[in-house]
């Protein structure tokens, strides 16, 4: 049987626009191309603007990972101008990052990913009582596991199915044999899908207290704009502290009682996915989720309270015990497969040398196939020391495990025992999903047990300053200055780099988690992680017209395509020096 071409475009339930082109033969995928089909050029747009405004521009890189680009931006600007935000401001950012990360993981699992594993129409056939029993059996202590609730959800699903108008479930692969959950599990999952919508709406209000809104809360170079004063009605006072306490507790409860048990149960059923979807076994992270560095982690202190003793580092070549030191200078990006060109040719370019120009060589739309062309995506291919590396929850969990982070180790060991897989199998479709849930719990615990209590204790001690005014005015800045930030955000390792000259941005660049993962082939022909996880004749694809299996694997990376695409100084110009003192 000759290989057949399969196109998945639009690849739905992700952020942004991703197209996957496959060649499949005999029920497996032989070749894969990861193609990002949106470009906006935001880094070009911020050039020449006030660095204090940059956060608002780059925050709009992504509305799913909202806040993270804004925080990365202000930390990079602070690094450049020498501003020192007070401790409370840094704790507030940690809380914002922590809640955003948990919310992001929850939305990813329930609303973006679950429909790959959960057969919604099947829930209409479930017995609600059995669903309650199923929930108890998997150890879910979630208060939503009630007979009334499940009955009502079943009626809703049945109503939608009976109406013939399936709404967002239209065209789903509901008859696909790869759906394996029993109806009662499906009913419980649909119910939790709705509960999670309710949950994310509520718990994200931590962002709103500090940033005024979400998506896209407001931030401030030099600290935060939300003043704290326990004795003023218009500042953050006991009222807000009590509210946040409630939302933080709610967050911990949902992740502990609903999210993690659901993931363990679902991945237990789809255990074979611990052997599907492995990408290159190299992992990069600078700490636990939320870890924030202003400047080179090797020399600068973290600006976040979240470290858990986990240091920046790499795991290479499937060795999950040896942690290699992280050197940001070894990062380079290739445009071999991307619609850009370098003056220096097809080489890896480090973030300190920017000279990329857009060079679109693809067909004019409408088109049906892109991969015949050596360039097929807007996403560059970052490499570390010329190696393909993975970033994200699985990288952080493996790194924390290797460094002996107690809680991570405990949770991973429990999961391995419960489902029956080994540590290297975390590098898989199911492993990425599980790592995300484990990380959500450690993050929620750090939020509830460390960050928030420290914040409250500081208020009690009179430590309420949230803004460093000394470097606010551009006249207080050096004429020319560079800076960068590295932040561990929901999807992985994020860094923002900029040069300020004469009070305005000269160069701006973001190296984004999804870029690491969604990039295409490099000059050596190495595939990007998305491509590697699908190709090479290992990944199943039973029905070419219903590519459910590759969707599961791609979704397990939690793609964020708007983040992924960025350009290095398309206007050309002078270089950029990595600051590391």
């Amino acid at each position, binding site marked *: 049987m000759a290989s057949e071409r399969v196109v998945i475009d639009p690849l739905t339930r992700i952020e942004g626009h991703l197209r996957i082109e496959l060649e499949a033969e005999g029920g497996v995928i032989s070749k894969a191309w990861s193609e990002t089909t949106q470009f906006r050029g935001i880094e070009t747009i911020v050039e020449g603007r*006030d660095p204090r405004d940059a956060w608002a521009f780059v925050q709009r890189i992504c509305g799913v990972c909202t806040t993270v680009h804004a925080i990365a931006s202000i930390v990079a600007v602070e690094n450049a101008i020498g501003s020192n935000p007070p401790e409370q401001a840094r704790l507030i950012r940690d809380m914002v990052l922590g809640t955003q990360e948990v919310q992001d993981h929850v939305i990813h699992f329930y609303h973006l990913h679950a429909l790959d594993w959960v057969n919604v129409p099947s829930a209409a056939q479930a017995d609600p009582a059995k669903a309650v029993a199923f929930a108890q059996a998997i150890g879910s202590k979630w208060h939503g596991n009630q007979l009334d609730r499940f009955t009502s959800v079943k009626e809703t699903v049945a109503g939608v199915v009976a109406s013939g108008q399936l709404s967002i479930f239209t065209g789903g692969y509901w008859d696909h044999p790869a759906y394996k959950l029993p109806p009662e599990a499906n009913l419980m999952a649909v119910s939790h899908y709705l509960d999670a919508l309710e949950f994310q709406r509520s718990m994200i209000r931590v962002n709103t207290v500090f940033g005024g809104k979400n998506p896209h809360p407001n931030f401030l170079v030099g*600290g935060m704009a939300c003043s704290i004063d326990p004795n003023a009605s218009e500042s953050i006072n006991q009222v807000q502290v009590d509210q946040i306490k409630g939302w933080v507790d709610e967050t911990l409860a949902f992740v502990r009682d609903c999210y993690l048990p659901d993931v363990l149960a679902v991945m237990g059923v789809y255990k074979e996915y611990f052997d599907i979807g492995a990408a290159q076994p190299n992992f990069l992270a600078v700490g636990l989720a939320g870890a924030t560095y202003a400047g080179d982690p090797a020399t600068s202190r973290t600006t976040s309270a979240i470290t858990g003793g986990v240091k920046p580092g790499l795991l290479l070549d499937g060795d999950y015990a040896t942690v290699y030191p992280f050197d940001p200078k070894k990062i380079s990006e290739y445009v071999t497969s991307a619609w850009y060109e370098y003056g220096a040719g097809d080489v890896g370019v480090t973030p300190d040398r920017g000279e990329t120009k857009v060079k679109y060589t693809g067909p004019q739309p409408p088109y049906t196939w892109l991969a015949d062309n050596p360039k097929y995506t807007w996403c560059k291919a970052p490499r570390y020391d010329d190696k393909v590396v993975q970033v994200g929850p699985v990288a952080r969990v493996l790194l924390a495990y290797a460094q002996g982070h107690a809680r991570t180790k405990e949770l991973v060991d429990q999961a391995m025992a419960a489902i029956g897989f080994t540590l290297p199998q975390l590098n898989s479709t199911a492993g990425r999903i599980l790592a995300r849930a484990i990380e959500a719990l450690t993050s929620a615990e750090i939020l509830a047990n460390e960050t928030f209590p420290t914040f409250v204790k500081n208020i009690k001690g009179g430590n309420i300053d949230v803004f460093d005014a000394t470097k606010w005015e551009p006249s207080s800045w050096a004429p020319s200055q560079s800076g960068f930030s590295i932040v561990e955000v929901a999807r992985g390792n994020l860094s923002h780099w900029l040069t300020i000259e004469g009070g305005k941005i000269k160069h701006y660049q973001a190296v984004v988690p999804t870029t690491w993962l969604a990039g295409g082939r490099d000059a050596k022909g190495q595939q990007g992680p998305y491509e590697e996880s699908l190709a090479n004749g290992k990944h199943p694809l039973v029905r070419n017209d219903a590519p459910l299996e590759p969707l599961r694997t791609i979704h397990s990376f939690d793609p964020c395509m708007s983040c992924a695409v960025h350009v290095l100084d398309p206007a050309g110009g002078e270089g950029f020096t990595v600051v590391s003192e």
Partner: protein
Amino acid sequence: MPFESRGWQDETLGENLERAGVSRRDFLTFCTGLAAIFAAGSPLAQAVPAFAAQPSPTPAQIADALAAVKKPSVVWLQLQECTGCMESTLRSGGTTVEEVVLSLLSVNYNELVMAAAGEAAEKALHDTNAEPHILVVNGSVPLADGGIYCTIGGKSAEQVLRESAKNATAILAVGACAVYGSVQAARPNPTGAVGVDEIIRDKPVINVAGCPPIGEVITATIAYLLTHDGALPKLDAEGRPLFAYGQRIHDSCPRRPHFDAGQYVRTFDDKGAREGWCLYDVGCKGPSTFSPCPIVQWNLKTSWPIGAGHPCIGCTEKDFFDRYTPFYNVLPQVPGLGIEATAEKVGWGLVGAVTAGVALHAGITAVRHAADRRNAEAQPLAAFGDSEPAQRPASDQNQSATEKGAE
């Protein structure tokens, strides 16, 4: 707010409306509104086979056709954007996203939440495009270079939008990108991004502005269509519904008394900031921004940007990334004069330059006058006693007589 299952219990839209207390008469009014849209947008009439016989179907025909259908179908596109608007929709606490997708509407196509992908998703889109539907658009349309900067299913964003707009009965541009292009349309707009109403000119476009808009405003705009017989809400000059964008933030801001009192935050986290004073002097764009933020607030009425101490950045206004920056200055910079060209500096500079010019001019004038004065006395004249008279008077006697009088 617990989710309530209020799915359609009866078979068709007609039955459901009747159950909800909507009479056939009201429904006909709704359809009259639709007929007007059809008449304005004749492509729709040609595209829908049921209406193909006549260029403009009568309200009764539309009513019959629609009553046979069930929930209104929705195509919810995401073009060149960041998904923040969908995230905001997910956060709506008014009409929740659950109600929107499961009870009120049949959202047959939305990339973020739909189950199907690839061909199956495209089929759902194609099928829904073929029938009358509500079109919601997130994201801008990049027009530069043949539309290569955003393609979906191999088609350019413009093509996707045009196909979906053809049979749309109502078009909502949700979010700053769909309204005018937002951040990617900021200078220099490398991808040529434009808003929906730059492409769709034969039908009214409701602009639900904001980056992102408040979730409740997004869902309320959709609910408005459903509860007002399909009639569009009253719109302002920029196509924004007046029910949400009728007032400036400044005019409904709880900090307004501090503005009127002259009490301003001078630097962040100062005494005034902790007292909740007005943020005008640190660049708040509330006086220039039409938005219901102080009224509806964000995330279940938890807070809102000014409530959390940060100045408004004006995200519901067109081109706010260019026109409302620098965010922390009261006024934009004077164009073409560099980064430090604040209005005050330039203004005082102009006044200073003119004053200096006047001083210089007055100085030159004075110097020239001094020269004239000296010049006037440069010539000795006997009549002034500058020199001795050339001729001595003849009579000493007379001289003495005249001189005596002068004593």
